[in-house]
């Protein structure tokens, strides 16, 4: 059954061990900017973990001109065929949250692959006792796309809740 990583902003401390665990697994070294999950902190104290939401209509996969992106049937993750990716950025443009990441130092686009069903980020978050990232079964529905927003938008909304100020005051 496909899985999904639930993200609870209230519980995220911003320790960014998810980035450490993810890059250690995928890159073999600590590389926060190449992590498939990244915690944004545009405003101090407002820590927003952002990763692929596996939208049910997969706009990124549809937008890929070289068919480098495909859906992993078992987990529901978007996978990248590294040999085919030309770093054109069409997937970034198609994503409602502009979540895929292209780095000059890497040959292909970076998208969360759900670690084949046992995500390192959620494991480390649980080991830390924060449980801001929790793996759940992916129930049918299209609401997952709601989380595919860019970090700046989420931050602005979250500021109103936590700080009760106009976001313009702080960012």
């Amino acid at each position: 059954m496909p899985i999904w990583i639930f993200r609870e902003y209230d519980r995220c401390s911003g320790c960014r061990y998810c980035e450490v665990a993810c890059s250690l697994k995928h890159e073999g070294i600590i590389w926060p900017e190449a992590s498939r999950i990244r915690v944004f902190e545009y405003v101090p104290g407002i820590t927003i973990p952002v990763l692929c939401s596996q939208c049910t209509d997969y706009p990124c996969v549809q937008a890929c001109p070289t068919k480098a992106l495909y859906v992993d049937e078992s987990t529901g993750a978007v996978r990248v065929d590294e040999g085919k990716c030309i770093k054109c950025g069409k997937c970034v443009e198609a994503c409602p949250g502009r979540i895929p990441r292209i780095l000059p130092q890497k040959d292909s686009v970076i998208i969360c692959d759900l670690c084949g069903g046992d995500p390192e980020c959620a494991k480390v978050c649980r080991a830390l006792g924060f449980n801001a990232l929790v793996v759940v079964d992916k129930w049918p529905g299209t609401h997952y796309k709601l989380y595919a927003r860019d970090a700046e938008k989420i931050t602005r909304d979250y500021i109103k809740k936590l700080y009760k100020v106009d976001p313009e005051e702080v960012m």
Partner: protein
Amino acid sequence: MPYGFTGKFVEVDLSSSKVRVVDVRRDLYRKFLGGRGLGSWILWERLGEVWEGLDPYSPENLLIVLTGPLTGYIAGVRLAITGKSPQSGGTVGSTIASEVGLELKCSGYDGLIVSGKAKDPVYIFVHDDKVEVRDASKVWGKGIRETHKLLLRDVLPELRKTPRFGEPKEPAMIYIGPAGENLCRFAAIEGKYAHAAAYGSYGSVMGSKNLKAIVVKGTGPLPPVYDVVKLKELIYKAIELVPKKAPRLRIWGTGQGPWRYGRDLSSIPVRNWQEEYWVEKSYSQYDLEVYDWVKRYWADYGCPLCCMKVTVLHRNGETVITDAPDYELLAYEGSNLDVWDVRDIAYLIWCGEELGLDMINAGNVLGFVAELFERGILTKDDLGFEVKWGDVKAFERLLKMIANKEGIGKVLAEGTYRAALKIAEMKGLKPEEVLKYAVQAKGIGIGAHGIRSGLDYPPISYVTSVQGGDHQSVAMLPLDAPPIVNEVWASLADSAVICQFNMLGGLDLVFDALRAVTGWNISKEEWVNEDAKRILTLQRVLLLLGGPDVYWDPRVHDDNPPRFYEPLPSGPYKGKAGDREEVKKLKVQYFSELGWDELGIPTKETLSRLGLTELEPAVERVRKRLGI
């Protein structure tokens, strides 16, 4: 290149706006690691010859921002900042929890050296291999929150200039407030809202260079390590161990401190250290939980412990957003000023942090002023208004006057020690008549941990510390005593550049991590007997060289503030006080353990054993000045 390092520093000369990348000699990494150790050595190498005459506010002083071998790899990101300190005349390895450390390494640099002085306000922007000096006129004069906001707006378009690459994460930043710009001698370098590298007053060194901020974004990986499998294992071990060893810090931050150090251990400053015990009931974490904190867990990168909270208050039409408050500031803006409502304390902290003040030293100065007012040494005529214990409005006014150097603020902005000398002069008093109310060591206000009850900090903590009143790096015996604030271990944390609290997971973990990252086999014994001694000896020599406005005489200044010899007037440890004879004995013992003579001057043999023979002429200069 040794594992865990990039081997490069970026150097920015603000006078000419020239940027160059410099290689660091490989042997220096092993000798000094990074951070506080390596920074002190770079200062010695470049400025040692002219140290005593060097004005910390002159363009010739350096501001060095450093990472260390462990930065970013394990347990709590940190950044070390050093230079010739305007407070002590020596060097302080002033550290701040800041992702600037991580971003620098990801940009390919172990550190940043800033020299010269910009003509107009500027900030430095490091983006991978691109290093720019940019106009900061829009943020000059602004408070911390506004500075953070405007700088972010200034650099985000640049970071996003290739939209098809996706969203870059926010850059890390450190900056100063008006206090630093106006060369207040206890101005901090701030990060986020109230994270600060405060001891040493490097905020004012930045101000003297017209440098408002340093903004860094690196997109590369951390440098390769010696044994990544072992490192990964250690990271998970730290995650498991550290919170377990100090669960209270995750739940309450250090905000639980006032009860512990006030009620139980009698070591909290109360009314400028006139007492160190209090009986008020509603103070500390309960009130913080109920009134202040809106976010319970807030960490910086790589911290498994997570001792910070976010506090939000709405007051006088303003929204206060600040960190913890932590123990030190609860004590210094709280009990030390006779302010007991945590909302008042958080408000005062916010006022000061917004101005970019070091709020430990600010609280030290404010308490000193309130006591001088109480004793009639400073009057309403001097101050412009009354400064009574517990008067939040008066303290708020004073903070602004200090940061802007208005009225008496100009004198007070010099810090407790120098202000005491000036006030004595103003009032026609002998220096010691005012200095007896100044609770400081080597020009640096003492942190909120007393020595009189004998239960918290040991008697020579501040007496022989190479960083004066710094409560996070103090002297104790035996040399390898386990507290993490022992300067032997503090110099490790500040040179490997990790958070000291994360050493609570055990020192073995730190040494194992050092081995896994660098491949060096440094043992605990080796650290205590050689590496720590090398760093402390170097710092001691620079401290004794001192100058140009104040010089330290070991026979006079290697001592506790006079207040610590007055008996505690209240509490379960009433009557207890520092013992001059004991201090004298311990001091000599400590010096001898470090291979220094009875005045704390490193001997020739010690210098040669530690590979510091270059320091011999400097030691001779110290001897000559002291006439010994």
